[in-house]
């Protein structure tokens, strides 16, 4: 009766084989590698790049242990870190001859030493969290209110030109907190304006107000439009962060949305946090505005403005080169309209310059504005954390059409490069702020792995020794079941590519300690049945059957706690919860199905079984 049908043995064998297969990559360790990926959308990573990297390494006489290509990158594996660094320099020199205008990111990385056939089966080693491999973690909060305000400002500008085009007379369009207020003299104009705006701007909601003698039309964004703008803002910011981090040359950055308005950035292996923060922290948005030339040349006004009282509708700035100027508040263009920015040189005087490319809407606006303002100055501002800086304020010489704009004058090559990088990396749709930051040094990472590993190892050994002494053969079976549990848990973590952190390793150790509970329950139950006079075979059957209900109940209550942690936990708690929950599931299988399988194999076919090797039961 203690025999499993064949399919159950096959099931156990298949599960174990899969477990072994997916655990395997973790044993091969990691090898130093160089990873090449593209910065520019126009430069594709393909087989040609792979061949080129191979050629470069050959030409330099650097031996590699394999070249791999996936969708985003080409990777070369090396025997030691010395060769890796030599190879990185060689590849960097060859692929990016012009360091100022790099097309590729060449980064140091680690890749698994596991054989190709395992990788082909998606059997990858566990993904180690930052606390185990070292690196930087940032949690960025996106300022959604800022995104909406920015959108309203742009809409207000659109409404002004709309009113002008339709010939509607109004008494001023201003943004007041989260609404746009338009003043009118009479109801007829207001109705005309409302009809025009409603057809042009479907995202706005209107309320008509009476303000003294004036009639007012207040426009707010519809809730669904607000939601869309916020969703767009976070997506845009993530894209921008991607671009910026690519410039940093990090091998495997993680950039993910967390919740409605937060972004997690993890940069494994990065130690230079200052630089990372500098690049991430450049929460720059680009704005093009007109300079108020009349007032800027009036010393009296400028003196007053320097004290913080600029004329209405303008703001006081000091240009990079030092000259003060007044810039109109009205925004002509924002960074959204920019599709590319490259450093280069002016065709005529060979001064360093930045070449901008605008999208079609941006090109049209730019053409109109430059046509109307020839001879005047235009300011390009970089807004960082609410504070603006005028990068440059060139004079508009002619109407500029076609969306190709060149900024030049009083710039060094390095500056041109910096400005282009900032602009190209894209402007953020909304400002961001670092709300959480974690830096883990590489030595701490290695220490944490060792600590976690030792905790698990010695915990396991202690439990194993105790179980074998206390329950003899049944103890050994329990230990085998526990090993299966560990194997399956690691296989599952590798398969899911869940991030393993130090609390995760702690959860593995704890899960082992808790999983043995099921086997203790079973073994105790079998002893009790024997004590009460059951035959060995009957005791095995009854022991497993009776214990199962209890095992199920206790695992469900543990799972409830695990799930609550998974849902509400973040960071280290989530790492713990994932492993804890998976461990409970694998332990149900291993401690009940696998251990029974072994017991059945050993005892199931014996007809005349006098006693079980489960320790002393004869004392009653």
């Amino acid at each position, binding site marked *: 009766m203690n025999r499993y049908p064949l399919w159950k043995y096959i099931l156990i064998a298949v599960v174990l084989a899969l477990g072994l297969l997916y655990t395997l990559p973790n044993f091969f360790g990691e090898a130093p590698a160089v990873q090449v990926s593209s910065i520019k959308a126009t430069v594709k990573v393909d087989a040609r790049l792979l061949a080129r990297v191979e050629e470069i390494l050959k030409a330099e006489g650097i031996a590699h242990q394999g070249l791999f290509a996936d969708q985003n990158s080409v990777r070369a594996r090396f025997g030691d870190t010395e060769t890796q660094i030599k190879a990185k320099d060689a590849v960097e020199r060859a692929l990016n001859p012009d360091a100022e205008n790099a097309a590729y990111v060449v980064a140091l990385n680690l890749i698994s030493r596991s054989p190709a056939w395992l990788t082909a089966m998606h059997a990858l080693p566990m993904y180690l969290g930052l606390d185990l491999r070292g690196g930087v973690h940032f949690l960025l909060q996106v300022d959604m209110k800022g995104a909406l305000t920015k959108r309203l400002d742009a809409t207000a500008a659109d409404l002004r030109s709309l009113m002008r085009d339709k010939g509607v007379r109004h008494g001023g369009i201003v943004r007041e907190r989260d609404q746009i207020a338009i003043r009118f003299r009479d109801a007829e104009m207001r109705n005309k304006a409302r009809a025009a705006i409603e057809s042009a701007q479907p995202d706005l909601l209107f309320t008509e107000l009476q303000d003294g003698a004036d009639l007012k039309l207040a426009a707010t964004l519809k809730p669904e439009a607000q939601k869309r703008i916020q969703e767009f803002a976070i997506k845009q910011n993530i894209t921008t962060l991607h671009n910026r981090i690519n410039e940093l040359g990090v091998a495997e950055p993680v950039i993910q949305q967390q919740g409605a308005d937060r972004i997690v950035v993890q940069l494994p292996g990065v130690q230079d946090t200052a630089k990372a923060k500098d690049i991430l922290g450049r929460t720059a948005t680009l704005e093009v505005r007109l300079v108020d030339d009349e007032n800027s040349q009036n010393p009296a006004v400028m003196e007053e403005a320097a004290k913080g009282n600029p004329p209405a509708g303008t703001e006081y700035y000091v240009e990079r080169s030092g000259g003060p100027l007044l810039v109109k508040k009205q925004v002509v263009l924002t960074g959204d309209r920019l599709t590319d920015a490259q450093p280069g040189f002016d065709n005529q005087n060979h001064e360093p310059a930045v070449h901008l490319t605008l999208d079609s809407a941006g090109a049209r606006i730019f053409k109109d504005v430059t046509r109307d303002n020839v001879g005047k100055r235009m300011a390009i501002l970089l807004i960082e954390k609410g504070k603006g800086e005028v990068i440059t304020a060139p004079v508009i010489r002619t109407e500029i059409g076609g969306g190709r704009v060149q900024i030049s004058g009083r710039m060094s090559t390095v500056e041109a490069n910096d400005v282009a990088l900032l602009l190209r990396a894209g402007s953020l749709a909304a400002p961001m702020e*670092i709300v959480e930051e974690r830096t883990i040094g590489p030595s701490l990472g290695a220490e944490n792995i060792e600590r976690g590993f030792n*905790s698990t190892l010695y915990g396991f050994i202690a439990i194993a020794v105790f179980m074998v002494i206390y329950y003899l053969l049944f103890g050994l079976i329990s230990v085998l079941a526990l090993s299966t549990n560990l194997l399956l848990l690691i296989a599952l973590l590798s398969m899911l590519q869940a991030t393993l952190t130090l609390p995760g390793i702690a959860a593995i150790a704890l899960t082992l300690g808790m999983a043995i*509970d099921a086997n203790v329950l079973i073994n105790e139950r079998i002893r009790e049945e024997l004590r009460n006079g059951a035959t060995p075979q009957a005791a095995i059957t009854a022991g497993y059957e009776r214990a199962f209900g209890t095992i199920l109940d206790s695992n469900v209550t543990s799972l409830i706690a695990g799930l609550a942690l998974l849902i509400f936990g973040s960071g280290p708690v989530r790492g713990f919860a994932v492993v804890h929950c998976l461990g409970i599931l694998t332990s149900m299988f291993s401690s009940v199905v696998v251990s029974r399988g072994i017991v059945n194999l050993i005892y199931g076919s014996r007809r005349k079984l006098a006693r079980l090797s489960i320790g002393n039961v004869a004392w009653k």
Partner: protein
Amino acid sequence: MEFFKIRKDIPFMRHALVFNVVSLITFVAAVFFLATRGLHFSVEFTGGTLIEVSYAQAADTQKIRDALAGAGYTDTQVVNFGSSRDVLIRMPLKPGQDSAALGASVMGALEQDTAGVELKRVEFVGPQVGKELAENGAIALLLVVFGIIVYLALRFEWRFAVSAIIANLHDVVIILGFFAFFQWEFSLPVLAAVLAVLGYSVNESVVVFDRVRENFRKMRKATVPQIIDNAITSTISRTIITHGSTQLAVLSMLIFGGEVLHYFALALTIGILFGIYSSVLVASPLVMWLGVSREQFVKPQKPKEEAVV
């Protein structure tokens, strides 16, 4: 080998009142320390900056404090962390301070003072995040309590559910009481440990209750205290061995896990020790006093109803 050769049921229920008074006193003490001393929350909850540095030689914390004060950081806490060479620096949140630059500027100040300082980790948490973590922790706790009550009420009976959860929540309060009394740092992993303990020690009650239910069916003539005594006695071997095994794993973490896992393992240790006590010796009397009886489990046979025309 066999540790437990118990031939007669131990009359636990005769001493039920004693067990409950003991646990009530511990509970009240825990609440008292929580109220008077409060928990020493980590930066994850309070917000602030935490910097761990490692020196080549034993570090002089007073010198570090002076160096930081010289750089304008006055309200700092500098303590050794794990070894005399590792130092943990805690800094409170300051409005208007550029958090991003803090790590670098602190390192600058330390390096000026002593060469060979290695930065091991920096953690900065803004005030908003900390508040959310505390809120989420509370929600998670409520969810666990609710989930377990519902499950046990479905699987057993509401009396079991209520007593199990009271017994185990009292464990949670006692763990927190320890953290308040010794002013150990209460961090996110500790919170995880507390919730894991809650799920884990409910197991204990489940095992005993399972036996109680079984005994109600088997031991027709026994009184309720006798049934509970028998249930506890026959599972005590398993209870102690299981907890012993789990404690072996936790002990290994306590010894080899280093500073980061220290308080995590400590919370688990307290939880496991009190878990045995309360889930067996507190939960069972509660069930008894809530008025559990055989009729709730064994359905009386219904007399066959005659067919009516």
